[in-house]
């Protein structure tokens, strides 16, 4: 398990733009599972939409991207010559949203590597709430130097 504090040390993003609360499973360079608790105290809940809060889909994508970044960070940390500092979302080949996510839900993000190279990755990801699929897709990432 990887705690929130450890996650903060692995990600470039800082709170409140951290969309992963905990990593509950991790197979180095292969697979990772994280949780994101969606709460009514987050800014979106008052605005998206008033009286009908729905967790923005783009935040689900960001949760997947950050979960992938954590996995790649852990996969690359033993490489001493690693100059790569930042994993950037390069493309979304396919992504579907199936059900709305609302305050009180816990998102379970599962990311599975399709192909992981030193500086690029393709992953398949699912987002579930109570074992119900709410979103899934495939994305590519490219590692870039932090300038």
């Amino acid at each position: 398990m990887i705690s929130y504090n450890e996650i903060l040390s692995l990600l470039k993003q800082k709170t409140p733009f951290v969309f992963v609360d905990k990593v509950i499973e991790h197979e180095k360079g292969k697979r990772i599972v994280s949780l994101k608790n969606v709460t009514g105290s987050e800014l979106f809940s008052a605005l998206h939409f008033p009286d009908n809060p729905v967790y923005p889909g783009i935040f689900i994508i960001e949760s997947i991207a950050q979960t992938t970044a954590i996995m790649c960070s852990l996969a690359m940390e033993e490489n001493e010559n690693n100059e790569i500092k930042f994993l950037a979302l390069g493309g979304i080949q396919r992504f579907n949203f199936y059900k709305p996510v609302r305050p009180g839900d816990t998102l379970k993000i599962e990311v599975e590597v399709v192909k992981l190279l030193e500086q690029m990755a393709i992953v398949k990801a699912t987002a579930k709430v109570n074992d119900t699929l709410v979103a899934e897709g495939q994305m590519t990432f490219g590692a870039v130097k932090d300038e």
Partner: protein
Amino acid sequence: MNCEERIKEIVCEIVEVAKDDINPDASFMDDMGIDSLRALEILAAIENEYGITIEPERLREMTTLNNVIKLTKEHLGETQ
């Protein structure tokens, strides 16, 4: 569908070009504006289709449709 046609289909779907419009010798990067992430998508799709593993360092050889076909056939020959 033969191997060449299937690979052409896979590549065209990923690069979003009609099968009749793709020049098999056109450079993905220089002529079609395809970046390395898209090339990685092609590599992963080919691996998945044929159950082969293409060495990551050979990604740089996947510069045209004909080169992708050649590389795939080479790996199919090794695994058959």
